[in-house]
């Protein structure tokens, strides 16, 4: 005979165990059906990029705007349906053909193509790179785009694609990051991009490209942190003779800057060129004498005696 207190406890415990068992048994199949895509196939009536241009009747930007809004909606709905939005690339291809200088699609392309409810495929990474390249061609001075394309190609994509593609992407990523580093920006993440670009180029054996990138960075950048980093890398990369030559060149350039136009940035100074002393350089014969150079190329070759530095 069971004690009374045990008999009283038995039903709730039985119910609890039964409940736990039921939940455990039902959870697996329910989760599986919940995670399955709600929609399997999608029919897109989007025209090809060439026909979209024709169909826009000249209102290319307006149609690109409309299609981009459509992509954002369909991208969001694809998460609700847990289905892959197959036509994303076709939409983005049409949008960037319609409006090649519309920057937002290029900035969002890696998110739209690789951050999906289902795992991204190799072609998604390659399509992303293709569209980034199209954007860089259309917007060559868009610093953020160079940075986005470079970071994606150098760090995110290579770990998800086979090695031959990964190597190529890393190489292109390093080049893009180097370009982003050369362009002036207030993005605090840029110094890391510069270091990363220098390291990647060095690792790829592109020493000349690294030196060129660091030299350009020093020429246009006023940020002390970036300058310190670039000089440090440059000192490591070049031999003693080159280092000495480069040091003299930087010093000479700095002295011209401080003497003539200390109130403008390096970029502005590089646009202005060296300021010849007008009263000494008047007349045809005087114009060729040292100190009368009007371009930095002439200045480096004639005045400072650094042959080949005008490159």
């Amino acid at each position: 005979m069971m004690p009374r207190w045990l008999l009283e406890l038995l039903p709730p415990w039985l119910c609890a165990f039964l409940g736990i068992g039921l939940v455990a048994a039902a959870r697996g199949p329910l989760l599986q059906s919940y995670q399955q895509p709600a929609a399997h196939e999608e029919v897109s009536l989007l025209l090809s990029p060439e026909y979209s241009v024709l169909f826009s009747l000249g209102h290319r930007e307006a149609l690109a705007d409309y299609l981009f809004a459509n992509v954002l909606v369909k991208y969001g709905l694809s998460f609700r349906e847990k289905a892959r939005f197959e036509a994303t690339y076709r939409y983005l291809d049409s949008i960037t053909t319609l409006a090649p200088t519309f920057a937002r699609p290029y900035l969002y392309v890696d998110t739209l193509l690789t951050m999906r409810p289902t795992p991204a495929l190799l072609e998604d990474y390659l399509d992303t790179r293709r569209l980034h390249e199209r954007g860089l061609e259309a917007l060559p001075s868009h610093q953020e785009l160079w940075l986005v394309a470079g970071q994606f190609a150098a760090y995110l994509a290579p770990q998800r694609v086979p090695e031959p593609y990964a190597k190529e992407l890393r190489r292109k990523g390093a080049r893009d990051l180097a370009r982003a580093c050369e362009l002036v920006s207030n993005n605090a993440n840029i110094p890391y991009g510069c270091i990363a670009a220098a390291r990647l180029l060095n690792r790829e054996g592109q020493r000349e490209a690294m030196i060129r990138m660091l030299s350009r960075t020093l020429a246009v950048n006023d940020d002390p942190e970036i300058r310190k980093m670039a000089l440090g890398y440059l000192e490591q990369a070049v031999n003693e003779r080159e280092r000495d030559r480069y040091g003299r060149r930087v010093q000479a350039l700095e002295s011209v800057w401080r003497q003539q136009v200390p109130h403008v940035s390096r970029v502005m100074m590089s646009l202005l060129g060296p300021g010849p002393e007008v009263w000494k350089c008047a007349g045809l014969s005087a114009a060729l004498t040292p100190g009368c150079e009007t371009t930095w190329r002439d200045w480096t070759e004639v005045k400072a005696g650094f042959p080949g530095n005008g490159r």
Partner: protein
Amino acid sequence: MRSLSPVEAALCIAIAGSVLGVGVPAFFRNLHASRLVESMDGLERIARAAAERAATEPVPTAYPASVRPTPAAVPAGVALRDPPGSWDDPTWVSLGFGFSTPHRYSFEFESEHRGRRARYRASARGDLDGDGQLSEFSVRGETSEGRAPVTFPLEMHREME
């Protein structure tokens, strides 16, 4: 101009009501769906910057320090402009991340460093319809000495609200 007969008026109201009944919810559903890209793009931006930083810094400082959700409260159904200085935390600054326009998601960055390994988790929480139920997405990444930083695929903890 003659006025509508009761039957005609009823027909018009029925058609207009049906169109509105189908169109209005679909419109709001699409509107909410289009806003999802803010969280995804935010996480992608963080992941890119974190991977880049991890590739250039030694493991102990591979990822910036953890930072509390910004903004602290998830905007409930509206886009909010952050007060000045919201994104001035050194972590957000070093990741080059922040918003200068009104937005709908709250972002958090957590990092830890143990021995020769460092990892991070970035998450985005949103309440697009303002019902108090939050959607949540996250990305994680890690790095260890001598290895390239890894970023794991997107994690969805609750994609629908």
